[in-house]
């Protein structure tokens, strides 16, 4: 099938493109022409998509999601997860390894790639575990997983507690030219913490999760990255001080990057009320309003490299319990782009070029994937975004299996309307292709 996306503003800073143009997608899954001639259009006989008022960008990539498959399919499956991704306009996702069993061998990587191929929507790039069982003790079979197709390595969900183990991990991963993604959490400081330590923990009588429990690991892993020369990426940073550490490391020329989640940008600890809504429980927790402001600035100014959802599906009954007993995490693939459009892009705080960098360019570079560029002959992996298509987030809007998000009821400005993976439509007019 061939498609012509006409009248859209096409933005791709990788090829210095920002203008209204027609993009012709050939039936070979590649971009056949930009501003095609009448003859080219006639020859291709494409399905025409009216892109007026919309913005066409390289396909979005979220490098931090949890699809629970294998092992916890009652929460979410790979098939369900890629539906959520497609709905959000994401053509690619990288899945964290905390499945059951943990993705610490090539076998699990192969299984996940196979399931994703069957689903045939967004592409899945498995992230392998750093250590066996994510226990932080013994190296996982990293070489085996690289061969099977793992794009990066992380023990996400757990901090690697011992610096010595982390050093070994980085030394070992370096030879495969992969990035170590670190979930920064010092358990001896965090303990049973469930909300930010400070006002909210005092007000609600909940155990505090201090900012330093995260920052100490960020600092440690930056230093270990300097020691080993291994590429390091800090997962879901939440504090102003953590961002400053990354900024300083970059100024020193370290191979260090980081990412941020929409909930840490647009919510803060004050949003956790005495209703004890478990959809505000995530790890790391919501921090102060000051931290959220610093994160928004750092995302816009280039200090934070990637926007990720930390999409963490849970079954309804698991979240309908006491706050302290509820699992951490919220879903975010469907609301991620709309939130950033509403709060950063449309108000003019973030440029479209920057949006493309943090949602498409930087994550692919960090996960060692081939770049996706809007150029003739390039793979037609594209997302068409309608920035002015107001809607209210409802459970029906969410395309994955889980509904655990604090953004239900939020009024948002716009969303993805179409998405293509190598010319294959996975989202058409806001509806996920079957």
């Amino acid at each position, binding site marked *: 099938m061939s498609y012509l996306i006409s009248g859209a503003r096409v933005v791709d800073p990788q090829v210095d493109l920002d203008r209204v143009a027609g993009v012709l997608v050939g039936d070979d899954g590649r971009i056949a022409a930009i501003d095609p001639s009448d003859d080219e259009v006639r020859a291709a006989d494409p399905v025409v998509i009216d892109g007026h008022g919309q913005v066409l960008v390289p396909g979005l990539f979220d490098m931090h999601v949890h699809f629970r498959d294998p092992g916890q399919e009652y929460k979410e499956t790979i098939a369900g997860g890629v539906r959520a991704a497609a709905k959000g306009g994401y053509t690619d996702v990288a899945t964290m390894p905390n499945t059951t069993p943990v993705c610490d061998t090539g076998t699990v990587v192969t299984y996940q790639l196979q399931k994703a191929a069957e689903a045939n929507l967004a592409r899945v790039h498995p992230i392998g575990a750093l250590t066996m069982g994510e226990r932080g003790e013994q190296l996982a079979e990293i070489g085996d997983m690289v061969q099977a197709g793992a794009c990066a390595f992380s023990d996400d969900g757990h901090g690697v507690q011992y610096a010595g183990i982390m050093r070994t991990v980085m030394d070992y991963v370096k030879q495969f030219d992969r990035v170590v993604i670190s979930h920064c959490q010092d358990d001896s400081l965090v303990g049973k913490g469930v909300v930010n330590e400070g006002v909210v923990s*005092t007000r609600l009588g909940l155990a505090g999760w201090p900012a330093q429990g995260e920052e100490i690991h960020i600092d440690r892993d930056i230093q270990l990255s300097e020691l080993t020369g291994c590429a390091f990426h800090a997962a879901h940073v939440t504090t102003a001080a953590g961002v400053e550490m990354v900024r300083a490391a970059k100024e020193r020329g370290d191979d260090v990057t980081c990412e941020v989640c929409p909930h840490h940008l647009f919510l803060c600890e004050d949003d956790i009320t*005495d209703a004890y809504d478990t959809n505000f429980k995530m790890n790391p927790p919501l921090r102060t309003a000051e931290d959220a402001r610093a994160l928004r600035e750092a995302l816009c100014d280039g200090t934070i490299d990637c926007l990720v959802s930390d999409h963490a599906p849970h079954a309804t009954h698991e979240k309908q319990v006491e706050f302290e007993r509820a699992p951490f995490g919220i879903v975010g693939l469907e609301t991620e782009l709309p939130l950033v459009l509403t709060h950063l892009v449309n108000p003019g705080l973030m440029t479209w070029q920057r949006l493309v960098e943090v949602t498409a360019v930087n994550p692919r570079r960090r996960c060692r994937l081939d770049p996706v560029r809007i150029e003739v002959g390039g793979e037609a992996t594209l997302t068409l975004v309608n920035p002015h298509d107001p809607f209210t987030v409802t459970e029906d809007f969410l395309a994955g299996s889980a509904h655990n998000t604090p953004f239900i009821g939020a009024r948002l400005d716009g969303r993805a309307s179409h998405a293509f993976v190598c010319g294959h439509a996975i989202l058409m007019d806001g509806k996920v292709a079957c």
Partner: protein
Amino acid sequence: MLSVRNLINTPSLTRDDIRQILDTAATFEQVNSRTIKKLPTLRGRTIVNLFLEPSTRTKSSFELACKRLGADTLSVAGSSSSVVKGESLVDTVLTLDAMNVDMFICRAKYAGSPEIIARTTGARVINAGDGKHAHPTQALLDLYTMRKRFGRLEGLRVGIVGDSLHSRVVGSLVPALRTVGAEVTLVGPATFLPAAPEALGATSCARIDDVLGDLDVVYMLRVQNERLDGAAIPSVREYAALYGLDARRAARMRPEAVVMHPGPVNRGVELTSEVADSPRALILNQVNAGVSVRMAAIYLLLGGESDVVSD
């Protein structure tokens, strides 16, 4: 009429709510002092005492309050409750709610449990203590005891000494005292203080001797032996020396100042027997006020359904 449907914590109570509860409790105190203490007021009403963690003192006080008001009570205790067997709190409450009960009185291990119950049932809810969050009736009976002794609450200077970080009493007592215009200082080692005392409206102080002479009320918290594992204090002996109230220290209190304690007292740790049994100590007055204050809370909450207009 109270401004709230449920009694979950004190920050939602207005000054007038607190006054109403204390005034009503005074009437019930009178009833509790006569030979026939039982009233027919709540005849035919059903109250569930859902105690998901053990509590002899609070549970007895609530049961007596319910019975003296003439209500039928149903006790669901932690050990017998299906919550322990893995049933969710929501399902337990839905099951009990299906039996048409009028009120839940809930003690729970986890903060926010009463809020879950309130969302799940149309019945009224009283929080009898949830996790480290709140214990509003304890705070109200403390206020009742202070008001009875001093004739006022406004301007009282209250020091709460001990493990505020893990105390559900502090989460309710401090905001209630602030609402009625009292000043509160949390006293204890930093390992016992909440991260942000100002979020509750309190100041904090590490040394008891710095504030003792200024206080009207010295409120001693129980040292929970189970907290010692976390190395929050090196030993009971050192805690008693630094923060315990003995006769020598008590002698530096203002002449009219009182000693309070939510019980049960660890004699020789936070209080010596000399102080615990002295005329300054209002510990048994607090227990005595408990039934009256709980009767008042139950009475005012269940009577709030006046939207049913009689002819």
